[in-house]
Each structure stands twice: as C-alpha cells, then as structure tokens.
C-alpha cells in the first residue's frame, strides 16, 4: 500500500478507482474520466493534489538561494503573493524538476512534484549549504485544485469569509488566509484556484465543495486537461536527459540580468550557441487513432523523434500529443501507430484554452 492523502476516505466514498501514483494511492477517476474532464471545461471540477510536495524557504539568503537554484528569476516576484513557474536544473542544464514558487511574507513557498520529492529535497538541501536559508517541508497541508469556469464562484460560496480575498487575487497570485493558502493557479487551462488546507480541515472542505456542485475529478482527467492546455508533465515531457530549451520551456529561463549565475546556466549558454538539436512540439491526429507516449515520429528527411505524452482529447474529439522532434521539423510529420504511418499536423501548443480550440 502507498501513502494516502487526508482525502483518501472521501475518494473511496465517491467510488474512486485508486491507482499507484509515485508511491501514493490516488484516484484515477470516479467512474468516467471523460465526464470529469468535461466538468472542468464546462463548469467546475476538483482534484486532490495533496501528494505534491510543499516546501517553505525562509532566511535572509532565501532570495539569493532561489536565484541560484532556479533557471527562472525570483527577483521578478516584486510583490508578496506573486508566483513563478521554473525549472530546477542540474549542472548539465537538464531538468531535475519543474515547480511553482510564490513570494510570501516570510520568504518563498515552493511546490514540487511528488514522484521527484526525495531527489528534489536532497538537491535543495545540498545547494542550501552556502546560503542563510531554512527549508521546511509542509506535510501538514493538503492541496485541493478547483478548476473550471464556475470554480471560483463555487469556492466563494464555500469560503464566504474569503470571498473578498479571492476576488482580489490576480492570475498566478497566492495569498495566505490564516493557516490556509489560496492561489489562482492550476494545471488545466481553465481559471481556478489551488488551495492549501490543513490536513484536519481538508475533508470538510472537500465535502462542502461537493455539496456546492463541484465534481470530484481524478488524475486521469487532470492529465487530459493539462495536455490539452499544452502543459508539460515531469518524467514524460522532460527529465534529467533534456534541457528546458528542448522542452518548450525556453520562456522559463531568465537570461537577464547576465550577472545572475544559476545552476545550469553555462550548459544552457553553450547549447544555445551550438544550436538546440530538438524541440518539443504539439501533434494533432485528425483521423481515427490515439497518439500515445513513445510512439515514433518521422519528420522530413526521415529524421525521427518520439511522442512524450499523447492522448485522446475529449474537448476536440481527436488525438493530440507532445513530441520531441529534430529542430528542423516542418508543419507536417508522420507517427507510427501499430506499424502504420499516419499523417499528423505539427502545431504550437496549447491545444485548448478556456474551453476552446486555440492552436492553428
């Protein structure tokens, strides 16, 4: 048996199908992954993402530490509450993990993936040795992501005392509310909130959201939603063998100011100078069939790449994928599915935003 979040019994009570996810027993769906997906695109759904790892970073060296640890620059976070997405790289410029960092009143709060928890914490502790910082993991908090066009309204009815705070919350901002933390972030391509809740309050909060009409959604729908939104999944779309420049994460590398050194900078600078060999692109298969991870992609001149994540898109009604391909790729390619080469379009993700097709 794996680790269980504080919501495990609530999942069982909603007939969740439980699977192992990075050592955690998590709901993959509660009956129908597609209905859950559609609930988020059309109304409001919620996910238990308490398996993710929260780390608070305090101390006078916290900003300098994160400016060295991360490829993106936390100096961009000019006000308390603002959040930033970044890769955490090794010396080779390859991706140890991706994360969100918020500036808080006492320092910073970082949320990293669950399957990478141990190596992330070891790396963060190791790099902290030269800085005046304290790292504190927060296993006392659960996380509920409420997403969809009606998500914020639903949360406001449940957390009436926080309605004003939520109304003031800009996109990619997070603010504390007592020992809770409310952030306007997500992994679905819809508006919504990610709320960190003390473990002893999270069951009640979940039930109140259910009562307010928010549909419980499993990690299956979370995956199809994030892929439609063109968001990378660590371990599938990038890992310690590739750099952000090969992972459609170039925008998360803060090259300026040049005086800032960060782990992996020298390797990225060299890769940029020599030419980045691969890129991560979107693929669309408009005929029948489903693109899946590890299928072979053939581009012009017979050069090959590979699908890193693929799925049927419930919103579009056909299959989409992210694929790492030679940088020379044009606007068409072929994917090998069961020994047949099928034509696919090469597009720039995202595929879907706010319920609508957005790729060209």
């Amino acid at each position, binding site marked *: 048996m794996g680790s269980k979040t504080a919501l495990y019994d609530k999942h069982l009570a909603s007939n969740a199908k439980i699977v192992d996810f990075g050592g955690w027993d998590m709901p*993959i*769906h509660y009956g*129908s992954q*597609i209905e859950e997906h559609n609930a988020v695109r059309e109304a409001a759904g919620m996910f238990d993402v308490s398996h993710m790892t929260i780390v608070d970073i305090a101390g006078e060296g916290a900003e300098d530490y994160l400016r060295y640890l991360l490829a993106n620059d936390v100096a961009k976070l000019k006000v308390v509450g603002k959040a930033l997405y970044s890769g955490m790289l090794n010396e080779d410029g390859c991706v140890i993990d991706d994360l969100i960092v918020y500036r808080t009143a006492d320092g910073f709060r970082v949320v990293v993936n669950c399957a990478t928890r141990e190596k992330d914490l070891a790396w963060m502790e190791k790099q902290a040795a030269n800085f005046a910082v304290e790292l504190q993991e927060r296993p006392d908090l659960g996380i509920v992501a409420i997403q969809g066009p009606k998500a914020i309204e639903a949360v406001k009815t449940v957390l009436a005392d926080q309605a004003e705070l939520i109304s003031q919350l800009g996109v990619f901002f997070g603010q504390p509310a007592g020992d809770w933390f409310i952030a306007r972030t997500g992994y679905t391509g819809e508006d919504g909130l990610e709320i960190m809740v003390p473990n002893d309050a999270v069951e009640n909060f979940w039930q109140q959201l259910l009562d307010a009409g928010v549909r419980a959604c499993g990690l299956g729908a979370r995956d*199809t939603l994030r892929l439609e939104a063109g968001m990378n999944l660590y371990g599938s779309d990038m890992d310690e063998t590739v750099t952000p420049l090969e992972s459609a994460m170039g925008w998360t590398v803060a090259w300026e100011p040049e005086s800032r050194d960060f782990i992996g900078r020298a390797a990225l600078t060299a890769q940029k100078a020599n030419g980045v060999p691969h890129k991560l692109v979107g693929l669309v298969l408009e005929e*029948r*069939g489903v693109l*899946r991870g590890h299928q072979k992609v053939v581009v012009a001149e017979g050069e090959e790449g590979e699908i890193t994540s693929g799925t049927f898109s*419930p919103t579009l009604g056909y299959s989409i994928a992210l694929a790492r391909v030679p940088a020379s790729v044009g606007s068409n390619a072929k994917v090998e599915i*069961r020994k047949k080469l099928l034509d696919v379009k090469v597009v720039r993700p995202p595929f879907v935003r706010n319920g609508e097709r957005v790729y060209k």
Partner: protein
Amino acid sequence: MSNLPSELRYLSSHEWLRVEDDGTAVVGITDHAQDAMGDLVFVETPEVGSSVSATEEAGVVESVKAASDIYAPVSGEIVAINEALEDAPETVNQDPYGDGWMFRIKMSDPSEVEQTLSADDYKALIEEEA
C-alpha cells in the same frame, strides 16, 4: 465484482462470445475489460465479409488510457459489425454485453466454442489476476 452472464463464453483476453441459434456468434469485451480500460474513445472492428481466425487479432479498442487488441474467439466470416460504436464508443462502457457488442461471426468450426471459457472459469481467471 464485475458482471458475468453465465450464458456467455469467455476468452482469457477478456472478450465474450454469445452463440446464437443460427450458427453465428456475437463478440464483445467483458465488463471487467471495459472497467479496466476506462472510457473508450475508438472501436476498430473488422470489415464485414472479412475472415477471422480463432485467437487472432480482429480489431482494436482504444480508451483514454490505452489501446488493446480484440481477439476473435472463433474462426469464420464477419457478417455484421456494430456501426453505432463509431459515433458512440462509450456504449461499450455502458452496456458491454448488450448494445456494446462489436461484431458477429458466421462460424466455420463451431467446435472451437469448446476451447473458450465458461463464466466460472473466466471469473477464476480474473480473480487470480487481481
């Protein structure tokens, strides 16, 4: 526990077979199989008029999660396919033994039915896999 009608025959690869009085056999996938696969998004059946061989691949089902081959339980000619599944593959999730049927085979060797599993045998098999 998944639903296992006792009048059907089964394959270890999770297809079911219903032998009709006219010497044809109707094929689909089991409740256990549809539950394990999750929401189906495509069903690729063999073409009417084509021949299939017992225990060989005859089609493919794709769910949001994975693709899975469908095996023919018996040999023969495909005399009908469930065309409704093209637009509504979710029917297989909703009614795997009824409206979610996939194709009908005119059997060339009805004795092959004896090689398939009874409901009890299939039940024992999926309990072992669980």
